[in-house]
């Protein structure tokens, strides 16, 4: 168990390095910079001398490799740099944003697991029934919906028409504000989970050992409880892990739409202004989240499936 953990953690550092390098490269080929953006924002032109001074100050003139090396060294010390835009340390800006993002992602995933896995199970146990048909139609629709459009529809129905819930914003950080963005974000993974769970359970129900279980004289309910659940779970957990990990990245659209003060909306705002240190920080956060979730999934495998033991 510890070995698995150690090995996974050892993978985190090179992965993060690669991501940072990629982001650095992208920004170096992107036209414009924070300063040229300020110059072109439609107000009076900036004094070239000021622009020159700012470029120096922000280190934008240094060679790419040098900036990269400096950034990596600082990050290793826990310093993600200073935002060009707000002049605040990026770590400080991020720290206020992580909890709202985490809350949104956790809520969305809880919704997806509760609804998706349940629907998938019911559908698999009664193939061809109305609940099977209904949940699979729902799953296909859920997969094909755009989060953006679906979020708008949720707002329209529950906030504008029914006036049950606030339409956007973080409010006091309570549940009322969380519900709509969480559903908008969770509907995709929910649909995928419903389909995967159905397939996984059907797969297990046709396995030889389920026939053995039936030959023992077990009721169908016992067969499911004792022999099907755990085996189906192994397959379901893979999808949960993949979806969970990438959800922080997917949250960008939903956070922007619902004016949710998370990492995603911070990142979008920072990209528009070429606020490179902040964007870097956001991306690092999202990647780190993905890696942590993946590690947890690997650990879960070891707990559930005795065949998996890492040597």
């Amino acid at each position: 168990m510890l070995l698995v953990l150690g090995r996974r953690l050892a993978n985190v550092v090179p992965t993060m390095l690669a991501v940072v390098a990629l982001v650095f490269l992208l920004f170096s080929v992107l036209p414009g910079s924070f300063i040229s953006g300020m110059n072109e924002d439609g107000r009076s032109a900036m004094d070239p001398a000021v622009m020159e001074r700012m470029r120096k100050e922000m280190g934008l003139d240094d060679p790419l490799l040098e900036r990269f090396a400096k950034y990596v060294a600082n990050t290793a010390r826990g310093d993600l740099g200073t935002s060009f835009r707000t002049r605040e340390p990026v770590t400080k800006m991020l720290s206020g944003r992580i909890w709202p993002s985490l809350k949104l992602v956790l809520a969305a995933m809880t919704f997806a697991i509760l609804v998706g896995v349940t629907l998938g199970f019911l559908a698999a146990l009664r193939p061809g029934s109305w609940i099977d048909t209904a949940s699979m139609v729902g799953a296909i629709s859920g997969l094909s919906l755009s989060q953006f459009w679906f979020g708008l529809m949720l707002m329209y129905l529950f906030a504008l028409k029914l006036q049950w819930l606030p339409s956007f914003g973080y409010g006091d950080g309570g549940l009322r504000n969380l519900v709509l963005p969480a559903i908008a974000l969770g509907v995709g993974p929910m649909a995928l989970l419903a389909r995967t769970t159905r397939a996984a359970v059907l797969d297990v129900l046709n396995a030889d050992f389920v026939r053995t279980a039936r030959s023992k004289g077990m009721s169908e309910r016992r067969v499911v409880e004792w022999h099907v659940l755990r085996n189906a779970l192994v397959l379901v957990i893979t999808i949960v892990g993949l979806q969970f990990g990438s959800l922080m990245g997917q949250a960008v659209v939903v956070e922007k739409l619902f004016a949710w003060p998370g990492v995603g909306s911070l990142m979008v705002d920072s990209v528009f202004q070429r606020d490179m240190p902040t964007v870097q920080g956001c991306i690092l956060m999202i990647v780190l989240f993905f890696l942590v979730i993946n590690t947890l999934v690997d650990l879960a495998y070891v707990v559930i499936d005795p065949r998996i033991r890492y040597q």
Partner: protein
Amino acid sequence: MTPPLLKVEDLRIALAGDGVTYNAVEGVSFEIGRGEAFGLVGESGCGKSITALSVMGLLRRPLSLGGGRIVLDGQEIQDVPAAEMRRLRGKRIAMIFQEPMTALNPLSPVGRQIAEMFVLHQGAGWSEAMDRAEDALRQVRVPSPERRIRDYPHQLSGGMRQRVMIAIALACGPDLLVADEPTTALDVTVQAEIIDLIAELCAAKGTAVLMISHDLGLVANMCKRVAVMYAGRIVESQVADAIFARPSHPYTQGLIDSLPRLGERSRRGRQRLREITGVVPSIQAYPAGCRFNPRCPAVTDICRTNVPEATSLPADGLVRCHHHG
């Protein structure tokens, strides 16, 4: 004469497909006495396994029981309610499957999978059931059972897994053990051990065995009587020794000729084993008349049009061939 333990009468198994229903098995009848070992032999796809599953009440779509009677110990069981059938399954009739690799739940320790039987059928608590599972493992001669009960199936060899299956099947002392090709997936050296184990344990407990195999030699060794199936019908049924000495159906003759035997070949001056030409027809395309006719060396016109009636042989035997006698 005491009534038989299991009596299968005119069994028909229907296969539903594309709006048409085929008879995968038809007119199959046999009896197994208490403690008797009975063999059912035939090529792959001749209907042996589904005959076994129908006795267990485990046929699943698209297969279903089309007709006939299955009588266990005087009770007709072909259409008892599902709950009652469950109480019989495992307790009075148990089954061993062909693939020990996949027939056990990979995520559950083998001890627990045996213990389930005691919990299900004898109302034992889990800790008592686990103790008894250990005993059951000892009986099937798994070394150090006290450690093995905690092992998962993937930690055991194929032979050990099949021993676990035997322990599960015999856990509640059933009257009938259905063994569907129990050794086919195993190494040749292990096969003999497993067959001996089944024979010995069943003899000791007075359990009857329905042994299903494509291996006539194996079945004839273990069973007193043998039925040979071809394309969903029983073509011949005889005492095991008589089958070898006087095979009455050309198909049985073909099966025996295709067995390698020490010294035989050189004595007959033959270099190659004789084979039965052709393959078993698919269920959708069973030929009219005797179903063996396209492959039969002695085929005549009547074989292509008329289904042969059963002709009696000595000692309760029978054969279905136009050319017998």
